[in-house]
């Protein structure tokens, strides 16, 4: 069975089943936005949602994570990683799945990061394919992440009265095995899926003004690196760090020790840290190797569109649009990239997305 089918009226039953299998995290509403949260009541789960404030990254690369338990005297380090429980990320968008794939590349590259690998091993991903663009800030089509490209265990597609579920791993298969209400998809279901995909092609349009190889080329030129665009972006930036916090592929961290009041036992943590912070590249001696907001913003963009492409042949922008959505200063990724593609008219792109009416 490669594709299964689940009637919508049975969804909650399935969610209850999943809740018993493992810790279940799913999107739910928080004020006017959405967040991933542990599912208490399956009725709170939102399947149609805008990208959440933070990506599910917080579950496999937590904001503050134990690296080490230590004792000063006698010198002792305890097992660095507690046993994690199995967990399911439910209704993850394809952009966020692409984010997990990027994290895999980083943390699996030697020397491997056992904390991440361990959490990843406990993770089961149930994806949810989008059939309408979430808003004007997303650039998932240009990044090629508006459609499933692997990296999940199950992928759900809403075809009206039911969901088609693509089974992509044994782990996924186990979540739907032996359930009377989940059956193999029939021909009719598959035809509907095909129709949905055709329809989607008409609605989803590329957001950047050039295909990715052109974008990469633009980022590769010395002119782009030295572009006055970065001064303008840096002038607006307040270095709040929001763009990096919400990015599914930002993985920088700080390491800090916390001592117990015994002053003999303590814990070493890693905590999210951002290249947008003032002290990020400053050494103890005082020298700051990346001064000023223009250089820091440039670095953020280059870490999405240039450096990882050189190193891994992979773009580290997944197109979720979070950085643009969260920016108080209206630094909009699509505007910045389009301006870089067309340096002569760079100024004309400021506000070109921001002032556009919302997609409906």
């Amino acid at each position, binding site marked *: 069975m490669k594709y299964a089918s689940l009637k919508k009226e049975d969804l909650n039953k399935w969610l209850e089943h999943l809740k018993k299998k493992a810790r279940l995290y799913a999107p739910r509403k928080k004020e006017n936005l959405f967040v991933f949260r542990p599912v208490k009541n399956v009725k709170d789960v939102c399947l149609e949602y805008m990208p959440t404030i933070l990506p599910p990254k917080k579950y496999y690369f937590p904001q503050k994570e134990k690296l080490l338990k230590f004792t000063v005297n006698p010198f002792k380090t305890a097992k660095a990683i507690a046993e994690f429980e199995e967990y399911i990320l439910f209704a993850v968008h394809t952009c966020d799945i692409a984010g997990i794939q990027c994290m895999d590349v980083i943390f699996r590259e030697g020397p491997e990061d056992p904390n991440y690998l361990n959490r990843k091993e406990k993770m089961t991903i149930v994806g949810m394919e989008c059939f309408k663009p979430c808003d004007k800030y997303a650039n998932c089509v240009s990044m090629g992440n508006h459609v499933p490209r692997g990296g999940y265990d199950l992928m759900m597609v809403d075809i009206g009265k039911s969901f088609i579920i693509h089974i992509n791993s044994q782990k996924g298969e186990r979540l739907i095995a032996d359930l009377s209400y989940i059956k193999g998809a029939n021909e009719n279901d598959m035809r509907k899926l095909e129709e949905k995909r055709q329809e989607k092609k008409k609605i989803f349009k590329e957001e950047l003004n050039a295909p990715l190889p052109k974008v990469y080329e633009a980022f590769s030129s010395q002119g782009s690196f030295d572009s006055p665009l970065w001064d303008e972006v840096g002038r607006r930036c307040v270095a709040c760090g929001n763009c990096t916090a919400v990015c599914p592929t930002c993985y920088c961290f700080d390491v800090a020790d916390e001592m117990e009041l015994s002053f003999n036992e*303590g814990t070493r943590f890693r905590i999210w840290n951002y290249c947008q912070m003032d002290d990020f590249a400053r050494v*103890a001696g005082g020298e700051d190797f990346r001064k000023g907001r223009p250089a820091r913003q440039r670095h953020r963009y280059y870490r999405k569109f240039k450096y990882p492409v050189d190193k891994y042949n992979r773009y580290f922008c997944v197109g979720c649009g979070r950085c643009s959505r969260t920016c108080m200063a209206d630094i909009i990724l699509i505007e910045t990239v389009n301006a870089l593609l067309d340096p002569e008219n760079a100024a004309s792109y400021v506000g070109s997305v921001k002032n556009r009416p919302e997609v409906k």
Partner: protein
Amino acid sequence: MIDREILLEKVKTSPYKPMKGRIIKAEMLTEKEKFFRIELEDKVNLAHEPGQFVMVSIFGYGEAPISICSSPTDKGYFDLTVRNVGTLTSRLHQLGEGDTLGIRGPFGKGFPIDNMFGYDLVIVAGGLGIVPLRSLMRYIMHNRNDFGNVQLLLGCKSPKDLLFREEVKEWKRRAEVKFNCTVDKADPDWQGNVGLITTLIPGVDINPMRTYAVVVGPPIMYKFVIGELLNKIIPDHQIIVSLERRMKCGLGKCGHCQIEGKYVCQSGPVFNYAQLKDFKGECHEKAA
């Protein structure tokens, strides 16, 4: 996904877990720099290359990257020389013989010693730069006939800041190392040069094609020294530098040490000038 068994093994040997090191010798070299000789638990050999660094931990006070200043040919221990500049290093200065600390590493790429066999060497050390270069110098002393002429150019603020004074004399006496030193500010007893280290380079007699230049010093020094070396027509690949950056992991993950797309902790800290030239503008040490 990787096999569960393999994973558990990896978890046990987490690269974030420091080994236990014991200080077997500690002494102040100057007012601000302290020397430590460290032995790992069970006499484990650090097995490093000259130019590599370790992450030194003191639990509760944090962790910092520190250059190793002994040669792998010094077996059974390794040396560090630390300037008191931050929380970790100031705590480190309070430690002495018999105290323990955490060690991770060695990390990074060291000096390309194999490529340097048979070549003449010009070694340029500014200030604390002599610390990582001591690992190279000691290696050279141990394998002196693998290398051609060796010249050591030293620069520091004032004569009292000169590190490893006795050892330098010994190198000079024992193994035909040409040695020249300059200070920014002399004291009455000083008989050597006064001025920036760049002033020593034009007078150096070399065959550029047969010479490797190895430069380590404060960030501001590189540009000018590299400029002088390029004037001597030393090829880009034969100008070697070691760069200092902020580091939190040593594993190419935490992001702090990045120069553009390169992680200094993994691709460096040792680079050659050809690599530096490829940077578009984030490398402060690149010559103008």
